[in-house]
């Protein structure tokens, strides 16, 4: 069996290639704009660049939104692949099937974050009337495009190297308690999680751009371990089942999607103010309220399973 003949993979790669082609077409205009843009003049070339800018914006906006949706389709495709890859019970087995999987997943998450930042910068640029952020916006697009080309390269490497005959290891062997960060125990990890969450709320409320950036990065890191090693066992109701991916499956009512999406959105809005300020030197503080909202939703979902378990059983796992 060839992995490239699976429906999900065909659809995924086909859409990915179309989006990259659209981005490369836009890149031709982006280079022209970066080279010749001068908003203060009213020459024929400048007006044609302004028109081209609208076209490019529309294409890039479309491709970015598709790329973000495609990320979730990628996760779904990996979930489907777990039925094909021997030994894989969920995405953990498929992702860990070769050396490229985890790098690819992290790269994809990073790209989705960057695409989100680009959308915000683009919005600010259009609202500015005089397109004052057009150059940093398109330089940033070039950086993202470079990452996307790199991502394609990794995707090919990853899919080519997924073994379909040799069994892979899955959650039970991939994730062990001794990999907890800073030598934390499960209960200490949960306490750290709630303390860091409190700080994200405080810094977001106080609109501290740098501190919020740092604490949200730390929160993302701690949350990954907390969900995997603490909260997930209350979702699975199995003390040894520590997997960040099985919660994405139907058996657990796809709750993993709500958990990870709310975490990513919360962290995204928490860190984006700092990145935007670094990129275009503009202070944006109205995104912190979304960070507070999504981080709180994330924590509430996670906490819900622990509380329900305790109410039902009178003990913690």
């Amino acid at each position, binding site marked *: 069996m060839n992995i490239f003949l699976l429906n999900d993979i065909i659809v995924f790669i086909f859409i990915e290639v179309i989006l990259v082609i659209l981005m490369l077409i836009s890149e031709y205009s982006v280079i022209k704009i970066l080279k010749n843009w001068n908003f203060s003049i*009213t020459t024929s070339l400048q*007006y044609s660049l*302004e028109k081209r800018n609208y076209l490019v914006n529309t294409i890039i906006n479309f491709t970015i939104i598709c790329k973000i949706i495609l990320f979730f389709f990628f996760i779904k495709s990996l979930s489907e692949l777990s039925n094909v890859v021997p030994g894989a019970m969920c995405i953990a087995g498929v992702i860990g099937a070769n050396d490229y999987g985890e790098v690819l997943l992290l790269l994809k998450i990073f790209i989705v974050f960057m695409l989100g930042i680009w959308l915000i910068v683009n919005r600010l640029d259009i609202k500015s*009337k*005089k397109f004052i952020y057009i150059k940093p916006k398109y330089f940033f697009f070039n950086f993202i495009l470079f990452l996307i080309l790199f991502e394609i390269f990794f995707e090919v490497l990853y899919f080519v190297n997924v073994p379909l005959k040799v069994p892979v290891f899955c959650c039970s062997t991939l994730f062990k308690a001794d990999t907890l960060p800073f030598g934390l125990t499960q209960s200490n990890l949960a306490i750290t999680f709630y303390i860091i969450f409190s700080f994200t709320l405080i810094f977001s409320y106080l609109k501290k751009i740098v501190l919020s950036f740092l604490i949200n990065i730390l929160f993302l890191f701690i949350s990954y371990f907390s969900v995997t090693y603490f909260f997930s066992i209350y979702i699975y109701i199995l003390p040894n089942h520590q997997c960040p991916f099985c919660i994405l499956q139907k058996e657990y009512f796809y709750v993993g999607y709500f958990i990870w999406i709310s975490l990513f959105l919360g962290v995204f809005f928490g860190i984006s103010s700092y990145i935007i300020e670094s990129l275009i030197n503009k202070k944006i503080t109205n995104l912190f309220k979304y960070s507070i909202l999504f981080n709180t939703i994330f924590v509430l979902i996670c906490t819900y399973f622990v509380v329900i378990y305790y109410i039902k059983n009178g003990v913690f796992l």
Partner: protein
Amino acid sequence: MTKITNLYKIYNENKQNEFTALNNINLEIQEAQTIIIRGKSGSGKSTLLSIIAGLCKPTSGDIIIENENIAKLPDINISNFRNEKIGFIFQSFNLISGLNTFENVMAPLVLKKIDKNQLEKQVTQALKIANIEHKKEQKVENLSGGEKQRCAIARALVMNPSIILADEPTANLDKSNSLIFIEMLKKFKELKKTVIVATHDSLFDNLEFVDRYIDIKDAKIE
């Protein structure tokens, strides 16, 4: 004031079928002036009005209206600018069929979040100025040519714009309705509106209240 400098509009630039619609237009229009732009079909009158209204972009040059170069405004801003500052009367009226006169005139106000009483007041006032209030409940497809014209005028006036543009406003009207429209132009002048009419209708020749006639020939001002 409206100031147009070194304005060019070239369709299909650098292609075999390249066509210059406006060639180095320079123009200054003071506030509350009534201007008639005359010229044969294809001379560039409508293109000039469309560019002033921000409906299309020039190939090069400046169009400064109330200190804003509208050719440089992003699409979203140009739409707001047009909505607030410019009333456009089209040759074929461009009314929304299926809606009645009142609803058509109300259309530009929908984008503005104003309360119902204010909205009704503004629409009624515009209908009164255009002398079409008595037909406010009537579907626009059932109006006569002259009535459609007056409905279009009311719609152009409803936002209380400082500039009114009319592109061949009498092309679809008989003589008596055309004369009614010319009378309406006097009213606009009393209301201190800047009015720019593009026409090739000889009824507009030698009108005493017109401040200036501009003749366009082969994409240039003569």
